[in-house]
């Protein structure tokens, strides 16, 4: 009861929590600083640099405050949980934030309202931070909404007709999804009496309450998460939004909100996994969603002519793979999912950086990539490597991550003997074959078709340096996945 907590205790809890909360505080103050500066000054570079500084600071503090405790610390009266799992994802968010800032800086289409743009970007990252740390339904809802509202606005920053349409669709779809999720959450709260879901008590409640309503409620809650990760059937917003949004925002969307969603989904699923003995087969459900996402994403992508739409469907399919890792319902699977997510983030940014580069050269459709490979070799080769990594072929980390994902699935099948997992495995791997088609289409046009388009070749671009770093990372993580896995291994998943 709140009344029993004395004021000094409360303050102590808050100050203690705040010590673990430095990155988020930095981001918050960053938002405020950006807005205040925005009242006085204009200019993209200034805000880019400011945001870069904020993200770097946040990143540094995450690394400094890397949680080493065996038992994760709960912050702000059990609202948040500061564990290594969330810290790891937060690193991905901040790195992605940095990359997005850089992409935004070099994007010529983002020409106005920079302070607001970067502030909202930062707010979304903050939301992602909070979301992956949340263990309380209220907190989940609020941080999810922070991400969502920020995202609705970010789409509109292209200030075009299509952008407004994208915002609208995203908004309508997102609001309905979060309403459904919220309804589910309230039901769970009502039936268990608990808002904090990441506890053993909650898991026991799930096991003991043999209520269909609870299951439906959880299902509706998952619906909201599925919306965030763009999993089928909550995916249709993705292609439209990706097409409408500016390129840096697309890149950002394909990583940060998605991985934040995956993060909270993981927490939720880990609880469901503990209650694996309940009469409802969550594993099958997640597997089916994964299968659907893989299928819908891959098959629809075959039709696309617009690179952004293509990447949207690709991201849906990649969600399928992330869910595949989760559907193993094992700690191992989550670790591998994290590996997959990290690689996915790197690769996706690699691809989007070059898509933006090509877009700036006037290439907006797949056909216009024709012959680009001859004039701009390095960007074409790098984008090829990125797409191969997305397909999951060696020698890229994309392969390693798929290998890991399916390993955990196999392991899970071995442990449970559920044939749905076997099907998922076969399905997922065969989908890899399909995905090859559309992933290879950009290189196909670039290298094989002849085009008249003359793009000026300039090797010494910052894109190429950054691209080179990402490519190296992708290759190195194939030859030595231990660099990352060693780190991920230290993450524990205690409830």
């Amino acid at each position: 009861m709140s009344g029993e907590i004395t004021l000094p205790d409360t303050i102590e809890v808050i100050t203690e929590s705040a010590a673990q909360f430095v990155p988020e505080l930095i981001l918050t103050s960053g938002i405020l600083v950006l807005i205040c500066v925005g009242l006085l000054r204009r200019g993209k570079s200034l805000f880019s640099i400011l945001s870069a500084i904020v993200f770097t600071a946040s990143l540094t503090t995450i690394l400094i405050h890397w949680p080493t405790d065996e038992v994760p610390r709960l912050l702000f009266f059990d609202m948040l949980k500061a564990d290594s799992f969330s810290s790891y994802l937060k690193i991905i968010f901040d790195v992605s934030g940095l990359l997005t800032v850089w992409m935004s800086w070099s994007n010529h289409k983002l020409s106005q309202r920079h302070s607001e743009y970067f502030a909202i970007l930062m707010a979304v990252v903050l939301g992602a931070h909070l979301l992956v740390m949340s263990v309380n339904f209220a907190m989940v809802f609020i941080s999810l909404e922070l991400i969502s509202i920020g995202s609705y606005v970010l789409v509109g920053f292209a200030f075009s007709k299509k952008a407004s349409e994208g915002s609208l669709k995203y908004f309508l779809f997102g609001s309905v999804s979060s309403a459904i999720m919220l309804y589910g959450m309230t039901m769970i709260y009502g039936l268990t009496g608990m808002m904090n879901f990441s506890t053993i008590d909650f898991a026991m409640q799930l096991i003991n309450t043999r209520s269909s309503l609870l299951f439906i409620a959880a299902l509706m809650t998952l619906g909201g998460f599925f919306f965030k990760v763009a999993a089928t059937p909550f995916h249709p917003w993705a292609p439209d939004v990706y097409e409408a949004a500016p390129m840096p925002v697309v890149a950002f969307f394909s990583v940060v909100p998605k991985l934040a969603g995956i993060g909270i989904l993981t927490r939720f699923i880990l609880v469901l996994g503990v209650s694996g003995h309940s009469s409802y087969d969550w594993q099958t459900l997640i597997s089916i969603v994964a299968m659907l996402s893989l299928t819908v994403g891959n098959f629809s992508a075959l039709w696309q002519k617009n690179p952004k739409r293509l990447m949207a469907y690709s991201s849906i399919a990649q969600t399928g793979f992330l869910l595949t890792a989760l559907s193993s319902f094992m700690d191992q699977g989550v670790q591998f999912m994290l590996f997959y997510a990290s690689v996915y983030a790197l690769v996706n940014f690699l691809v989007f950086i070059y898509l933006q580069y090509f877009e700036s050269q006037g290439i907006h459709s797949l056909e216009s990539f024709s012959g680009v490979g001859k004039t701009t070799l390095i960007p074409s080769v790098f984008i090829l490597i990125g797409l191969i990594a997305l397909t999951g072929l060696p020698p890229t980390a994309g392969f390693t991550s798929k290998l890991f994902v399916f390993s955990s699935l196999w392991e899970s099948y071995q442990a449970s003997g559920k044939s749905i997992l076997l099907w998922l495995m076969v399905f997922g791997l065969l989908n890899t074959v399909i995905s090859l088609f559309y992933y290879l289409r950009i290189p196909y046009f670039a290298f094989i078709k002849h085009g008249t388009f003359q793009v000026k070749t300039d090797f010494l671009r910052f894109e190429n340096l950054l691209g080179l770093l990402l490519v190296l990372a992708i290759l190195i993580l194939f030859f030595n996945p231990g660099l990352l896995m060693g780190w991920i291994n230290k993450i524990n998943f205690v409830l």
Partner: protein
Amino acid sequence: MNIATFMFYFFVITAALTAILLLFTKNVLHGAFLLIITLLSLAGIYVLALAEFIAVAQILIYAGGILVVIIFAIMLTSKVSGKPLQLEHGNVINGMIVGGSFFLVLVFLISREEGLKVIPQSRLATINELGIALMTEYSLPFEVAGIVLLVSLIGASVFASTTPTRPD
């Protein structure tokens, strides 16, 4: 049946009826007003469910705030287009399938839930209590909600202040 019960079911029925009407009305403005009635009925229910503060917030924020804005928006959009406030219904079958199934499933499941049929013993949460909770236990969501507000304000301003120069 005492007055509270009567009031409760009165509000329930009003809310339900207005919601149903809302579904069927073809006039946007009527819809907005119907929603106001629904929300006010809900506020009444909250009061009867011993959640006074929520009720107040409901009346203040929704009925007083949002709906006024909505009515402004209705005026604004219909003025630009010059069309009457009538609207069509589309996807009726889709809507009926989804809405109907959700309703049936939920009602069916809720009715099967024995725990929900007992009449709970409840108590009134004072505003004082809520205030303390807001500053202690719920300090973080409170702060974050502030940021959400900030973001949505900025966002709304971004949208509102840009005028379409050329439709592309």
